[in-house]
């Protein structure tokens, strides 16, 4: 069935309030400024050379779930950027609502479509550009805008106060010392081998992940630290809301915190979008070709710890398990082989999904979509039945997903489609099954 975005309008406080302030003339002025300032050869080439072949349709999990062309990558561009350019930005407020709904909630910026387009057209970039326009117009979904506000005010995503951060780490240290008496969560250690950074949801409601990481690092005997100042959060929702200025501030704070601590590198927790922000986006905005401090994702760090024998598994996690490849560390960093080596080292029996590795389907939560909150929850669950089919076809009951957003997205899909699977981080399994010397 063919529909358009107008057939599936969703009310959102942020979008409604945003468009209420606009007129076509105001919209045009802003769009022309954004196009003149930021639109360059990439946008021009992509829009001009796209031959409208529709090959990219099958790349997108939304299309594969709905089989509706308005969800195909090129279908989304047709309903947004092409129209904007055709009308030279003179479009209605309602049209901007549609643009925002498509760009923020119907595209995860997962970059799978680049494996389908012979011309290499980066639809994720075009959708990011549409988001940028929407941000400049003040038309952003309320929930993701709230996270951007939090980033702006606190430099973390979840309004975690400065003292709450330290308090949470001390609390987890206390808890963990019941199990491993000599465990520390070292704060502000200058010259440590690495700074461990996490996303704000960890101190906020997934504190056990900090606990687990501390136990793993303790057992590995590594020299690490966490900052006691803002700059500890590696997540970056401003990157997805289109607020590149705040995006840059967050990344600068993160890198400068690592530099202040004189660490040799930054090791990041199991998060995908945060990795994208630090590894691929923030550095560019700030003018670094790569990073001022080397950036390592947990997958790679666990791989190092296992390969160097710093941690050993007391037992293997009973399988079979399947592996979900998070877009931002697989298509975004090529960690598919290391991920598999780690999983094979810690689990008994792996059943691969099809397709997998760089071709894996997205969880449908990333790219800021899950952060657009409850009004759009069903968009990403109904829009990813293809992932449910993929998970179900493995026939296994455990799925390893080394990414927070993927956990959020997959968890909802597993419940909705009654898959009865459990989700695990690598850290969950390593913590559970590793040798723990000196542990009570």
């Amino acid at each position: 069935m063919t529909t358009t975005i107008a057939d599936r309008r969703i009310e959102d406080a942020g979008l409604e309030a945003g468009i209420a302030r606009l007129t076509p003339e105001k919209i045009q002025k802003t769009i022309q400024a954004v196009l003149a300032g930021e639109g360059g050869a990439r946008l021009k080439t992509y829009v001009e050379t796209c031959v409208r072949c529709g090959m990219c349709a099958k790349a997108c999990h939304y299309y594969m779930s709905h089989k509706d062309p308005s969800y195909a990558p090129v279908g989304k561009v047709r309903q947004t950027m092409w129209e904007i350019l055709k009308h030279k930005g003179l479009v209605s407020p309602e049209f901007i609502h549609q643009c925002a709904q498509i760009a923020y909630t119907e595209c995860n910026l997962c970059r799978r479509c680049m494996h389908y387009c012979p011309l290499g057209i980066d639809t994720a970039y075009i959708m990011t550009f549409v988001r940028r326009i929407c941000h400049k117009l003040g038309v952003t979904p309320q929930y993701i805008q709230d996270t951007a506000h939090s980033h702006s005010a606190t430099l973390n995503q979840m309004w975690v106060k400065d003292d709450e951060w330290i308090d949470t780490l001390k609390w987890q240290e206390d808890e963990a010392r019941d199990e491993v008496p000599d465990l520390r969560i070292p704060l502000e250690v200058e010259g440590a081998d690495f700074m461990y950074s996490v996303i704000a949801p960890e101190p906020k409601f997934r504190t056990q992940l900090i606990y687990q990481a501390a136990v793993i690092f303790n057992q590995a005997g590594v020299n690490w630290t966490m900052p006691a100042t803002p700059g500890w959060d590696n997540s970056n929702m401003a990157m997805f809301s289109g607020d590149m200025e705040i995006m840059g501030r967050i990344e600068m704070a993160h890198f400068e915190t690592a530099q202040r601590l004189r660490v040799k590198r930054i090791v990041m927790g199991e998060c995908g979008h945060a990795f994208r922000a630090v590894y691929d986006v923030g550095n560019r905005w700030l003018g670094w070709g790569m990073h001022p401090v080397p950036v390592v994702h947990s997958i790679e760090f666990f791989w190092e710890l296992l390969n160097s024998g710093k941690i050993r598994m007391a037992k293997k996690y009973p399988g079979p398990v399947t592996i979900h490849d998070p877009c931002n560390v697989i298509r975004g960093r090529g960690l598919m082989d290391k991920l598999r080596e780690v999983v094979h080292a810690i689990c008994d029996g792996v059943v691969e999904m099809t397709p997998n590795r760089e071709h894996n389907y997205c969880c449908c939560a990333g790219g800021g979509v899950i952060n657009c909150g409850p009004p759009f929850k069903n968009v990403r669950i109904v829009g990813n039945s293809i992932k449910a089919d993929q998970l179900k076809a493995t026939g296994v009951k455990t799925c390893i997903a080394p990414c927070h957003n993927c956990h959020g997205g997959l968890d909802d899909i597993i419940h909705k489609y009654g898959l009865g699977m459990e989700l695990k981080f690598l850290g969950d399994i390593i913590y559970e099954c590793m040798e723990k010397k000196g542990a009570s």
Partner: protein
Amino acid sequence: MLELYALAVGPLAWLAFGVFVIGSLARLFSMYSLAKKKDAAFLSYMTWRYSLRSIFHWLIPFGSLGWRENPALTVVTYVFHICLFLVPIFLMSHIVMWDTSFGFTYAALPDGLADGLTVAVMVACLFFAWRRLSLPEVRFVTSTHDWVVLVLVLSTFSTGFLAYHQIGDSLTLTTLHVLCGEAMLIAIPFTRLSHMLFGFFSRGYIGSEFGGVRRAKDW
């Protein structure tokens, strides 16, 4: 009609080739300047190694996920593009014209084969037209522009085919064939046919991002 034919193979041919060559160069140059001015931070990630790696994989039939998932389109696309270049360049009647005008020749395709390849292009055009009409994901994004470009290619090859087989008035068809071909050349730098110019760069750029930064394949 004879005057029109003379105009078509004379001044208009110069014009068409001129617009095609100069227009293409101008567009490539202006796009490069724009990229340097506005996308410098991204242009700097382009590398020969990963650009060519990506282009290489995408030039192999079924060498990428996109090609594999669209098998019929893949076969037709390859046949279409190969014939689109082979036939005009290596057709005996075209080489004769180079010889008459400039006195140089080179190996030609056997007429029978060239004829078959011409039919292949026409069938491919019909296949593309069928896709635009029948597949919802293609119909949804198809505009007049796409039809104009498709009709331009189909008209060029079908008038050539009819002229070769002496079906209909030979002079009229030959003249039409020349005019259509010239229109196609002129259209290349200024329409979606410009993917012929820019496609390698956009593929090369994304290949560089995937290869050099993201360390993942993009095919």
